[in-house]
């Protein structure tokens, strides 16, 4: 077996071991590399930044544990910006696990102690609503015809913010974060097309390419590109968190992947050139 042949087939255990090391080093010793903000995250930030204080937002937690490492940090940063700007947020979940994500995120944001926000006045959580696009259209259509309580069973009429909103026209902006393609498109169909609301959305990086046409046509005013978008948001809002730590890990792991790709290709062509 020639050296090139060996290099085209490095055993998978070796590669995975290397990946493990590449994850560990930066996790133990963060580098704090500078960050370049992408234009799509910047557009997200600016859209929220332009909202006058007191505006009401509808926010969908459309992901669960699988998406939490990518989208959770972005969600926390997004909430920091919104509470800092004194925006009021009606939160809902189209993902089955969304209601379990809510306490995790709020533990990271701490709106009461950090921003003096009050549940019911500055934010409410409606809980998980089944039905995907039907739930979106339901909340945007006539909230009170659909639901009468929040996630803990408190009557919506006793929560001033929930009592104030009834339909799409009451929201100044719709925001979502999701791991599901159907949810990502669904909000474009329901919030933008059906109810003509300004909309920003975030999703896993692997979905960004297929959602890009909506951003180009202005149906999405901003787009959070997975963990990269989350790091951008942490940077822009000046609340560094897990996503920025992740950037360091990405530097190591992806550099390793690139080296492997290079070795694989050089070896592949050398082997081919050598006439196997």
């Amino acid at each position: 077996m020639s050296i090139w042949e060996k290099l085209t087939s490095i055993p998978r255990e070796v590669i995975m071991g290397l990946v493990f090391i590449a994850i560990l080093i930066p996790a133990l010793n963060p580098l704090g590399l500078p960050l370049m903000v992408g234009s799509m995250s910047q557009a997200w930030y600016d859209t929220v930044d332009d909202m006058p204080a007191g505006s009401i937002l509808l926010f969908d937690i459309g992901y669960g544990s699988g998406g939490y490492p990518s989208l959770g940090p972005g969600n926390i940063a997004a909430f920091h910006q919104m509470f800092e700007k004194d925006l009021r947020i009606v939160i809902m979940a189209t993902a089955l696990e969304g209601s379990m994500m809510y306490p995790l995120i709020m533990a990271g944001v701490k709106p009461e102690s950090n921003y003096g926000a009050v549940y019911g006045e500055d934010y409410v959580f409606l809980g998980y609503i089944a039905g995907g696009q039907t739930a979106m259209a339901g909340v945007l259509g006539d909230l009170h015809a659909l639901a009468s309580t929040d996630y803990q069973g408190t009557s919506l009429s006793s929560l001033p913010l929930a009592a104030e909103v009834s339909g799409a026209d009451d929201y100044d902006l719709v925001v979502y974060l999701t791991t599901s393609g159907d949810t990502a498109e669904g909000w474009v169909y329901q919030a933008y097309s059906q109810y003509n609301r300004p909309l920003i959305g975030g999703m896993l990086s692997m979905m960004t390419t297929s959602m890009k046409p909506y951003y180009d046509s202005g149906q999405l005013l901003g787009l959070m590109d997975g963990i990269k978008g989350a790091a951008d948001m942490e940077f822009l809002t000046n609340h560094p968190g897990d996503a920025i730590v992740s950037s360091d890990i990405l530097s190591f792991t992806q550099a390793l992947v690139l080296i492997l790709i290079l070795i694989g290709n050089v070896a592949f062509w050398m082997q081919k050139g050598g006439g196997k």
Partner: protein
Amino acid sequence: MAILTPNRLVPLVAFILAWVATYMAIQMGKQGKIKIRRMPALDAIEEIVGRSVEMGRPVFDIIGMGTFTDLYATQTIAGLSILSYVSTLCARLGAKLYAPQASVDVLPVAAEIVTTSYRMEGKLEELDVEEQLPYLSGTQFAWASGIIGMAARLKPAGNIMIGPFWAESMMFAETFDRIGAMQIGGTARLYQIPFFAALCDYVLIGEEMFAAGAYVSGDLQQIGSIAAQDWYKIAALALGILGALLATAGVTIIGDLLLM
């Protein structure tokens, strides 16, 4: 017009016309007026089966883990049409086919399709459904491990993967590549296409798989609806090209019209 929602006139017209177009195209399909282009991938399937016969090794046809009731039913159906074609070729040329299954809904239908192909070719005695169409598992990673295990054991010379695929796509493409199988991949789940495109000898991107499925099955209704979609794509091409050229010249009539 107070009854109609403002700024949605054009989409409404497009919607109604889509209704008409679908109906007309299916009628035309039934009259045999529509022909679908033969995809190079189908020639590649013949090549794969032929190569397997020469090498005396089996052929795999994996249709994915979709069911008839999920969002990806149409992809599963396209996969089954291809399976019918592959099994006919295998029976005719004498290659051993393996088509492992992941859905209890789809399994009996797939078995029926393969049995029919072998019967039509008069090779029914060469088929063992239990062995060649095993049910592996409905859970993703168990299904993936099952396929990888089978591939390592049976060393197929060719692998055809057309249907809905999830994260297992890369594992499959990589495993079959390692054992030297020639591969064709196709799915309308766009996130998975890069893995197929990088490793397969031929890849069917998105809707190509539906067209290929309709071509081999000759299902007139499917052929008709592909034609209806084509008319819309041609309309989109015409409007896009004309609109862009006019807009460049300073006339924005088409863009404005579409936003009405």
